[in-house]
């Protein structure tokens, strides 16, 4: 286990000294991973903040396209990191970003899993997770507002949006919504 950490430290050191841009990408992605608590879209607000607001690596609409692609792909939404990495720095960017966004949580799991039973019962644990989840509502509300402002609306888009929302609320599978929405877009936009 120690070997893994040393390996990670070594890789980070190499990156730091050889390519500043990639190192930057790595640190951002690792931060996003470390704060991706709670299910589903938990990581999106932080991704938005870091990638678009803080680093200005892309605009809102490109980021939304990345999220859309993340919906189409299997796997977690945080795979958008591959997209961001590729747009930043080609193939190596995509690879590094993906590794960076998955390694920290993996290592944490490996280290904590044997001890979980003891940790689970401490009251700090319960409070910490409650607090993290409670702030989530505000965060995704922020994302919804930010995304909505970035899109140039018209009547047709509004119609599509409301229809999609209604479908999702009625528990229609996301994949169907995306597929039908795509076909609709191809014809009407």
């Amino acid at each position, binding site marked *: *286990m120690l070997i*893994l950490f040393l390996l990670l430290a070594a890789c980070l050191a190499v990156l730091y000294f050889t390519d500043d841009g990639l190192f930057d990408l790595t640190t951002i992605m690792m931060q996003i*991973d*470390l704060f*991706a*608590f709670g*299910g589903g*879209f938990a990581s999106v607000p932080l991704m938005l903040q870091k990638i678009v607001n803080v680093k200005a690596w892309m605009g809102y609409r490109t980021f939304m396209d990345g*999220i*859309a*692609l*993340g*919906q*189409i*792909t299997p*796997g*977690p939404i945080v*795979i*958008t990191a*591959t*997209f961001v990495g*590729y747009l930043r720095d080609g*193939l190596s960017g*995509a690879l590094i970003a993906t590794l960076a966004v*998955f390694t*920290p*949580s*993996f290592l*944490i*799991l*490996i280290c*904590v*899993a044997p001890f*979980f039973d003891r940790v689970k019962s401490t009251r700090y644990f319960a409070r910490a997770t409650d607090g993290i989840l*409670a702030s*989530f*509502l505000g965060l*995704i509300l922020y*994302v*919804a507002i930010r*995304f909505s402002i*970035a*899109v140039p609306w018209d009547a047709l*888009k509004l119609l*599509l*949006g409301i229809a*999609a*929302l209604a479908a*999702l*609320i009625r528990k229609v599978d*996301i*994949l169907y*919504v*995306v597929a039908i*929405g*795509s076909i*609709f*877009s*191809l014809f009407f*936009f």
Partner: protein
Amino acid sequence: MGSNTGVKDLFLAFLRLGMTAFGGPVMVAYIRQIAVNRRQWLDESEFRNGVALCQSLPGATAMQVAAYVGLRSNGITGALASYVGFGLPAFVIMLVLSVLYINYKSLPTAVSLFNGLQVIVIAIIVNAVYSFGRGMIKSIMNIAFALSFLDRDQSLHCHHNRRCGGDCIRSGHCPCCIGKN
């Protein structure tokens, strides 16, 4: 339970799972089907403990559960095998899509497609706000309701509006009036 064939099996099984890994919590159910029912890499209670753990740790829950299954089955090598196997399809597909995006995004077809997809993404996020918000509202209402009990019980006040724990009502004597009658 560990052996080298085990690690390869883990990788391949999760590779296949990774190709259809849509809809977070649903994925966990599929992982359970393979890991507990079909392959018996771990038992039901171990799995459930694992899911609870993975939900409370950072990182995508489904990926973490995949790693957990691998860890329980074949140690760190197993965890690596299942984690990488599960994430590889997503990486490859996203990479391909990113390349296509860069090269073709200015095409009118692509523009049309993404114009609509952006709206769909907003709908997905608003839905997330809505479903998460509903749960929160219930908690907030619970808290407010609980707080409202703090000073509801008027019977614990005597006619002088002092709290006396109901003593004066029960005994007929008001402590604040003792000696004054």
